[in-house]
């Protein structure tokens, strides 16, 4: 296993573009901490973001994993190009001739995906812990380490998304087209959801029973938007709408299961395609 990872990391790390993107990704991730220093001034009223409770345990796990997941596109580019480049350089063929099996090839790519996801999760964990310890109003051990399922959901979300990128890289063979396809797929899912929501299941939430199975939708269902959970926003809602919306922000086992299934599907399909294709 270490052999496969070493092979893959040499390929990524020696490539300047991939190296810069990877470093940029982690640097920008750490910029989430800078949200702490945002201050608004509206007349005499001063709003300091860090004092509004976004860094309170356990809410911080939810908030940071949600924000951090937006930055996954940086690594998505690295992963798509690490796959597509193997085709354009002809090195996939050479790797196989040199004695790497097709299975090992997919394994090495998937292991890299897992390591990237794991690295991001660890990074977010440490950063959130530090931010929380500096700004959180609650510092009891029990509270600090509650709701950690957001971190697991974040890990799974990244793994699934990167596996999707890997699959597209193998399917399309060209980085630019694979990333284009990703966006098109995003739009297609949007259209499907829209159609089901406003045309098929009018005036009910039943459409979610179907749309939760779509790959990108299932990934975004893992961690729901955290903003309306903030007390500031809740206050506003209560003032305007009378009562606050009751919403479920938790991480559900069935959402995790759906995403896990997609990961398996993407990896197996990648292997199938590679096995069937003449290079």
């Amino acid at each position, binding site marked *: 296993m270490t*052999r496969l990872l*070493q*092979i893959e990391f*040499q*390929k990524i790390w*020696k*490539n*300047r573009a991939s190296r810069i993107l990877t470093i940029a990704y982690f640097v920008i991730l750490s910029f989430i901490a800078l949200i702490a220093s945002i201050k608004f001034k509206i007349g005499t009223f001063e709003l300091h973001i860090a004092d509004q409770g976004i860094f309170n345990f356990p809410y911080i796990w939810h908030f940071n994993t949600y924000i951090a997941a937006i930055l996954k596109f940086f690594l998505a580019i690295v992963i798509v190009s690490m796959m597509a*480049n193997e085709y354009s*350089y*002809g*090195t996939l*063929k*050479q*790797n*196989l*001739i*040199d*004695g*790497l*099996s*097709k299975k*090992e090839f997919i394994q090495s790519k998937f292991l890299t995906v897992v390591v990237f996801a794991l690295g991001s999760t660890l990074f977010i964990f440490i950063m959130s812990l530090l931010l929380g310890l500096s700004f959180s109003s609650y510092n009891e051990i029990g509270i600090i380490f509650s709701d950690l399922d957001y971190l697991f959901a974040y890990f799974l979300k990244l793994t699934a998304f990167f596996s999707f990128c890997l699959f597209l890289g193998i399917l399309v063979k060209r980085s630019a087209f694979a990333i284009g396809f990703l966006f098109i797929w995003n739009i297609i899912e949007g259209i499907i959801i829209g159609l089901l929501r406003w045309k098929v299941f009018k005036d009910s939430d039943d459409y979610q029973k179907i749309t939760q199975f779509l790959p990108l939708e299932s990934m975004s269902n893992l961690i729901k938007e955290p903003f309306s959970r903030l007390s500031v926003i809740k206050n506003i809602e209560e003032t305007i709408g009378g009562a606050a919306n009751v919403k479920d922000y938790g991480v559900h086992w069935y959402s995790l299961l759906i995403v896990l299934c997609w990961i398996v599907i993407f990896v197996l399909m990648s292997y199938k395609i590679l*096995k*069937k294709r*003449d*290079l």
Partner: protein
Amino acid sequence: METILTIEKLNKRFGPVHAVKNVSLEINKGNVYGILGPNGSGKSTTLGIVLNVVNKTSGEYRWFGGAMETHEALKKVGAIIERPNFYPYMTAQENLELVCKIKGTPYSKVTEKLELVGLIDRKDSKFRTFSLGMKQRLAIASALLNDPEILILDEPTNGLDPQGIRQIRDIIKHIASQGTTILLASHLLDEVEKVCSHVLVLRKGQILYSGKVDGMIANEGFFELQADNLEELKAALIAHPAIEKMVLEEGKLVVYLKQAFEAKDLNKYLFEKGIYLNHLVKRKHSLEEQFLELTSKN
């Protein structure tokens, strides 16, 4: 004799195109094999199949007697096909180190092989800065990293200038002289004639000839003769046991042999029969003529 690769009734179809038809062959240790064939004759496809990059339609192949899986066996094989494939952003040394990781070979081999192909001075240059000849030599270094049991080269001199061709050929000769088994696919016939001991001729996916190079080059050769009376000459030779057949061509008698027969012995034989020759030449078909004759049939 130790068998390195056995191919039995291998077939490959690309849709309606039958690229490899019922190919069977055996590669034995220590020989240098040439695979000849016009473009599109199935050479690269056959190599692609045994190298795990093209899927076969039917048939079998076994590496080293079938004792191990293909990808494990390939770690004992060195192969380059068509064009050199490396990561352009890595240096020569880094590229070879990556191959070491895949094959499980120690890094110490990298310097040794770079020296062998004369690229040691450029080991820290990025692959994309290399000329085609240098890329091809790096590919050979890479194929040799694990001191392979067999070296497979598919068109190694394609697109090279005369110096480049010479360098590659010298390297191949050097490797062959060390007793490494080589499988060389090429359409450059003099290349094959110079380095190979055995030859396979493919056309439209079928094997036309398989055997020793000497066996293919018109066995004992032929004579071109001319005398004042050709009929008398023909009559005198017809009974000779070394002669297979005679053909009249452009006023000359072409005499094909089935066993060794020296020019001086023929001359003496005819002299004794009272026939004096105006013209006597002994020739052998070159591999090229033989190849063209084989592949132009049907």
